[in-house]
């Protein structure tokens, strides 16, 4: 059980993180709506990018964390890693959904249709389905080592699928703008420095948000564990 001083310390750390995240988001908002110039060809709608791309990055990062934690769980068999994998998958799915919502909103005025079967949009959708299935698997099975092992296997299998999805959907068809931030000429050559800076701030804000949410979700799972433990203790003692 957590002793009070440690709890307080955690709280303080959490508060710093909350402030940092809030500040980063404020900076990102200022950057997006005041500082950055409007894109010439796409107009004001292009500002969606500063949410769309960081959300995509965040969900991808979250799924990568699921992958790593799944491997570590199968290796060490420590409940801690299972908690991290679960928490990260949940956050990943939330931000993947945001990508899937902002994507069509951006696509509608630019491509003229809500949904085009474009490579990256399609792979995001498949990724979303994989991790929703992951969360369903977790919801279906009762807590315990079986659920953790199965989820870990699926976490590994699902992440290894990403390169296959990427290439298969890419060869299938694509309309997406070629990646501008990391292009063949080097990082950030295709973009105005002010846009790059804004995107960077926005990425930072979202990454901080990830850690904030992670802390919250992990705490939640631990609380659940604690309650389960107490209940079981009570059940067997009486």
């Amino acid at each position, binding site marked *: 059980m957590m002793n009070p001083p440690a709890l307080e310390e955690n709280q303080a750390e959490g508060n710093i993180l909350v402030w940092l995240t809030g500040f980063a988001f404020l900076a990102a908002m200022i950057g997006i709506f005041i500082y950055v110039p409007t894109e010439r060809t796409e*107009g*004001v*709608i292009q*500002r*969606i990018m500063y*949410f*769309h791309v960081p*959300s995509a990055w965040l969900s991808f990062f979250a799924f990568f964390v699921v992958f790593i934690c799944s491997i570590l769980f199968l290796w060490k068999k420590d409940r801690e890693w299972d908690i991290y994998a679960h928490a990260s998958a949940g956050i990943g799915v*939330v931000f993947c*959904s*945001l990508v899937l*919502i*902002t994507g069509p*909103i*951006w696509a*509608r*005025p630019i491509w003229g249709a809500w949904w085009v079967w474009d490579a990256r949009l399609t792979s995001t959708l498949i990724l979303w389905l994989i991790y929703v299935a992951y969360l369903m698997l977790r919801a279906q099975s009762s807590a315990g080592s079986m659920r953790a092992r199965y989820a870990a296997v699926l976490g590994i299998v699902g992440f290894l699928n990403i390169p296959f999805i990427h290439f298969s959907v890419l060869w299938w068809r694509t309309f997406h703008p070629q990646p501008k931030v990391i292009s063949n000429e080097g990082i950030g050559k295709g973009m105005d420095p002010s846009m790059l800076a804004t995107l960077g701030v926005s990425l930072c804000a979202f990454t901080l*948000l990830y850690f904030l*949410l992670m802390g*919250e*979700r992990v*705490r*939640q799972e631990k*609380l*659940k564990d*604690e*309650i389960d433990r*107490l*209940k079981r*203790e*009570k059940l067997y003692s009486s």
Partner: protein
Amino acid sequence: MDNLGFLFAANAFVWGGIIYYVYTLRLRNRALEKDLDLLKKTLSKEG
């Protein structure tokens, strides 16, 4: 400038999504904490 509505909608969805998620997380945490407190209280009363 006529695409302002789309930009606004996308922003609203992002913020709405994030805030709703944080809100439900907080809510669940509070419920869990309450549950834990209750459990501890009943345990200490009986023990």
